């Protein structure tokens, strides 16, 4: 599974667990409009660390807070290199 698909899969799972409706997603959708709130995103990042072995937001020295879904996915794609 690609990094992006893994992220989408985990987003859907966290949304389901938190009783949230996930919006139709594309790269330009604001992360906060995705249907996940701050807690949902924090949980998502922890789950993705288990699946992808990387947490680009907590380990980085200068965290860039992701604004869009595209930013969020890109942070993982960079982290994987």
């Amino acid at each position, binding site marked *: 599974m690609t990094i992006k698909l893994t992220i989408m899969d985990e987003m859907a799972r966290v949304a389901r*667990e*938190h*009783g949230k409706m996930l919006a139709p997603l594309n790269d330009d959708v*604001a*992360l*906060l409009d995705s249907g996940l709130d*701050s*807690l949902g*995103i*924090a*949980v998502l*990042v*922890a*789950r993705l*660390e*288990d699946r992808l072995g990387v947490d680009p*937001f*907590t380990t*980085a020295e*200068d*965290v*860039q*807070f*992701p*604004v*869009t879904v595209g930013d969020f996915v890109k942070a993982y794609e960079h982290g994987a290199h």
Partner: protein
Amino acid sequence: MSTALTEAEPLRAHLARAPADAFLFDRAARVRLAALVAGTSLGGRLADLSGRSVLIATASQLTSALALIELDGVARRLTILPPDVDPDHLGALIAGAEIDAVVVDGPAPQFSGLPLCVTCTPNVAPRSDRQDAHAVTEWVLLTSGTTGVPKMVVHSLAGLTAAIASAKRSDPVVWATFYDIRRYGGLQIFLRAMLGGASLVLSSAGEPVAEHLARLGHHGVTHLSGTPSHWRRALMSPDIGTIAPRYVRLSGEIADQAVLDSLRAAFPHADIGHAYASTEAGVVFAVDDGRAGFPASFFEGARNGVEIKIIDGSLCIRSPGAASRYVGGVNSAALRDSDGFVDSADMVERHGDRYFFVGRKGGIINIGGLKVHPEEVEAVINRHPHVRMSLVRPKRSPFTGAIVVADVVLTTAPAVAENEAELRDDILKLCRGALPRHKVPAAISFVPALAVAATGKLLRRAV
């Protein structure tokens, strides 16, 4: 000129100096501060409320603010009810604070047993009677939710405003806070605005971030306060550019370097400060050098009348802004030690010339302002038939400050990895059924053993 209050000067007296264009704003209404000097939002019922122990239990922050302004110096005691208090605890709170009147802003059958119920509205009417302030009112705040009945903490207006420095009148100030003003952090901002005669834009529960930011931008907010989690949420909004505060303030959680740097990048010209305060200890200090933690020099002598020291790793505070005592039968342990120091239960560690907050004594975890006792989560996990023991601990998160994760020791190791995943889901399902979602572990790791201290207790380490 100092804005520090004398004991005789009630809150309302300060509004006489507010300019005509200073307002309290919420999503639906606005109230001119100057109109409150000779107006009433309580239907002129001040004579009835005089000398009573009054519970401020309105649904909206705006009516809470109006009632506080009107009743300071009139009521014997004002107990401020935050919006998220468990209704099951109301009886204990009412008995503990000897409440004999309540201010509401809508139907409130839960208070029908109280002798006096007065309705507050944002439609301020001229006052006919001249019920002058005569009393020094006790302000009672509730500590934020852990388990059981919240503690009730007694402050005076003089103490609550002790840390508010005199503001130089230059450009007009418009305050806002992401907090609810019925909690200590938000109340500080409310009082700052009122003492300075400045407008204040109130937050609204459940308001989407984009709409809230648009509202702050519309009112030209210059001074904005929130927790690091509030700010992270704002920084993740595409609409962050709609606000341009001159002063950015963080409090209520540990401000890490990442959030400070991100705010600096978003607001290159703003003053950015993080304050350390608690409901019991009051405002302790503010750090404005843009760096996480605080300078070791803060321990050298009193600063603004506030002294700090470390006992067993925990920061202890002696301050004129500290609460005087607890009220109510529950949790009525002494608030200060024999030297007058309040134990914050916030653990600090020195690195070089600075001290950093490393977590809570007793391991309480702060998830975006909501507190979690690890033990309550462990108790749920341990109910699972395949779990021998578990350790719940915080894991740092740039989005909520921390999240809950669990290390679990099983009675027998699962044979294959697939069973492990199934078991993890099963434990999580159990947690979701029994706990609010911020307490459900974000991740579960299966470990062969957990360290136990000589006392027989699980060894808990600070993050």
